[in-house]
């Protein structure tokens, strides 16, 4: 039984993440009065990319070649290390919140290096902007996780997910503040509005897209998939840490299925919110973004101050 659960835990992230991206696009299309692509379109895109040939720039080095693998593996690892639909799996080895933050930073590191490696203007600027935003977002990220950690008395993510929601209502307000702060960071790290437009390919507006512009074929598939995984991971963290309800407490077919279903519903709500946000606002000018991140940081700091 446990083996099946573990396998589901490992596979769930890469399996479901393209679906999330597809649903976001579908909702946005509907809001724009279009029919939009099928929600399974990202799967088809990945399949297509995996079966295409590649062109690699002659200026690229082994870093360019290895970066997609590292970025994707990191997201796999993190996806398996965070609570998705269960809370009884204890993971004291890789379930620490700081490890998650910095492991995702490894992904950002290699992504940015991959963008620099090809020596194009797009890649360079993409990396520059990405590192700027990532450096500033890290503060808010750590702080929002810290709020929840302090409320629960542990930085182990699984242990946090095991706790009662809002600790019986005592910490409602700090949790909500941290929730809002985490949302801002989520949008930054997953390259969504108002930070980045995942659909654009204009050099003035690209951040994530700029760094992976030169990739093609299998490597591009891995990069795209990794970005879907990252979105899924952040959504999972968002909904499970701040609202740890519906997670399976004990192993058993019923509880696991209920856990997965409730988890999917929560993810869907998160996806809906993101799609609504993306449809209602425009991308911000780049130098307004640090202010936004600073707001997130301050919100989280206030949340921490309100604990106790």
């Amino acid at each position, binding site marked *: 039984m446990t083996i099946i659960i573990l396998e589901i835990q490992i596979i769930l992230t890469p399996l479901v993440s393209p679906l999330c991206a597809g649903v976001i696009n579908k909702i946005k299309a509907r809001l724009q009065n279009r029919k939009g692509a099928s929600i399974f379109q990202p799967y088809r895109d990945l399949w297509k990319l995996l079966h*295409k040939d590649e062109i*690699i720039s002659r200026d690229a080095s082994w870093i360019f070649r290895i970066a997609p693998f590292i970025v994707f593996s990191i997201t796999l690892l993190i996806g398996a290390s965070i609570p998705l639909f269960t809370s009884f799996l204890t993971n004291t080895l890789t379930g620490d919140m700081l490890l998650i933050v910095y492991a995702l930073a490894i992904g950002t590191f290699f992504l940015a*290096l991959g963008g620099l490696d090809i020596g194009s203007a797009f890649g360079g600027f993409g990396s520059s902007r990405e590192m700027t935003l990532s450096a500033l977002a890290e503060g808010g990220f750590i702080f929002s996780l810290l709020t929840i950690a302090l409320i629960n008395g542990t930085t182990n993510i699984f242990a946090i997910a095991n706790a009662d929601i809002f600790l019986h209502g005592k910490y409602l307000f700090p949790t909500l503040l941290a929730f809002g702060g985490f949302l801002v960071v989520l949008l930054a790290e997953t390259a969504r509005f108002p930070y980045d437009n995942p659909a654009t390919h204009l050099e003035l507006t690209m951040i994530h897209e700029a760094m992976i512009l030169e990739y093609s074929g299998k490597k591009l598939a891995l990069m795209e998939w990794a970005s879907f995984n990252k979105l899924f991971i952040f959504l999972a963290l968002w909904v499970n840490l701040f609202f740890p309800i519906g997670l399976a407490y004990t192993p058993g077919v019923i509880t696991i299925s209920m856990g997965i279903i409730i988890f999917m519903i929560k993810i869907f709500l998160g996806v809906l919110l993101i799609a609504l946000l993306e449809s209602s606002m425009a991308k911000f000018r780049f130098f307004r973004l640090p202010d936004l991140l600073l707001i997130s940081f301050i919100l989280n700091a206030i949340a921490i101050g309100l604990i106790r």
Partner: protein
Amino acid sequence: MLEIITSPISFFILLSLFFVGAIGSLLLRKDDDSANIWSNFFAIAGSLWGLLFSVATIISEHTAAFLVNGSPFPLLSFSFNIDLLSAFFIFIISLIALFCSIYAVGYVRHYYQKYNIGALGFFYNFFILGILLVLTASNGIFFLIGWEIMSVASFFMVIYDRDDQENVKAGFLYLVMTYIGTAFIVVAFLLLYKFIGSFDFVTIKSGVALLPIGAKNIIFLAALIGFGVKAGIIPLHIWLPAAHPAAPSHISALMSGVMIKTGIFMMMRLFLDILQPIPIWWGIVVLIIGIISSLLGVLYALTEHDIKRLLAYHSIENIGIILLGLGSALIFSSLSMPALAFLSLVAALFHTLNHAIFKSLLFLGAGSVINQMHTRNMEEYGGLIKYMPQTAFFFLIGSMAISALPPFNGFFSEWLTFQSLFQGIAILDSSMRWLFILAVGALAFTGGLALACFVKAFGSIFLARPRSTEVTHAKESPRSMLIGMGALAMLSFLFGIFSSQTVSLLEKIGRSFDVLQKIPETILVSNSQGLMIENSFSSVSGLTFLLSLVGALIVVAIIIDLIINRSQKIKIGATWDCGTDLNPRMEITSTGFARSIVVIFKGILKPSIQHTIDYSDSESRYLPRTRTVSLGVGDVYKSYFYQPILTMITSLSMRVKNIQSGNTNIYVLYILIALLVSLFSIL
């Protein structure tokens, strides 16, 4: 067996190895090659001995305090005290010196025929000798002798490459700042002598109750400034970005990895050991200094395009992180929370070790690159990964370590520092909490900004196309340099994976402090796989992370490469160039990379931009011939802090100058008057 290794005789053998290396190197100065081999051989031998000695001391906890008789002066006694903290720092210096010396065998070759290699070997060995004396001296005056040896030897090495006038100026600034620091240290020691009556550290420690509180605070401030100059805290750091680039690279590595840590060592020794019990505001001051130094250090590093200045600023940043650990240790110890103080201290010690390793690695890598490129300007690098692949790989590991990416060692020491600060937030009350919240924020931002800075550094140096023709002439470094760097990279990796074992050894060192001995239960429980803080607050395991990451990589690689679409063809083509010619100007420069961050932080960094246009026709000003843009960062410290002091001192000196009439007779008259006055006042 261990007794013999950790005995005083063994320590003297250690000192004499370096001494012989120094003298022999000077005697062999006519022959570059033999001077190089001799000095580095003895440095390597001494380092190996030092490693053996320190590891044996730490494992067996067999500390030694001994005295060498024969001092002609009553206040100076050649007394040594090698306790666990000294042994730990001896371990650090031996480790770094070992690999820097191996590196130096190949590196120094490019100074042959230009400068005196014998002199370099002489000063190098004396430098290490001085540091060893500083770490083990138990008498204030003896300590100062070692401090002087260390400072003067490093000065001569900083100005070693004296063809470049900038280096000489940097050396002079370094010397002046060092002596200002030493003056403050002397003041601290003199005050201790005045109230306790001895320069001996053990006596001072037992007599610390005799100090009135006002004097104790002044001693704290003097020691903080004095040792802070050496450690490179802001605003006393102005010598660091000038002196570290000027010295030869293996010396920069030693200076940055070890010498600035002697300041930290003495701060730990004085504040946590000798002067206990301490008021809480001391820890608060140190914590604030840590916050400021770490943030400003990394921000200034982002503005640099000189590779070694960038690394020097990162040293300032990491000293700030170590001070975060030390400051919280001081705060917890004065609030009588020894368990938390222990945690913070272990974090600070671990980060000291880790920083020494990865900073030396980065400096050695920078040295290899500069050797080939003959310039320190990162804007002229680019694409070196194809010409110097091993150096690039080692530099990558160093970059990952300093950016605190798991599974390298930097992550684990920052993790521990974070944990100690988290505990502070969890346990302390409101006013102190906000300080710790601020510290966590500073550490979080520092980590992110350091990552950005090293993406910039690694990307500008090694990736993309060459930005100058010099790059195409670059060759991989000689084997000794690669061995030095490779070993440090391996250590960086190993100390990360085996962080739990390292931390358990560090716990021993932490427990050797008197104030931390009464810990009811350990807060840091390291089982064989990972680090764990008590009450299951946090735990992390480097080994598991590494294994799972490697496992995931292998699985992904197999699936993607071998299973899906095996018939894929990979073509090599040109980068997408939007139809124009590909040239180096298309790549982002390191200045451009960091410009966004500089603009965001423009309140702190005060960037300036200056346009100069040279027109063909100065009358009509329509057709520019050349246009120069100068980007700069405002030097706040020079203009607001040092310049007023300098002006004041200069005007004072001009007035005092009138005493100097140029006539020797007047001078002897001054002597006679001074003699009479002093005789009158003493008798």
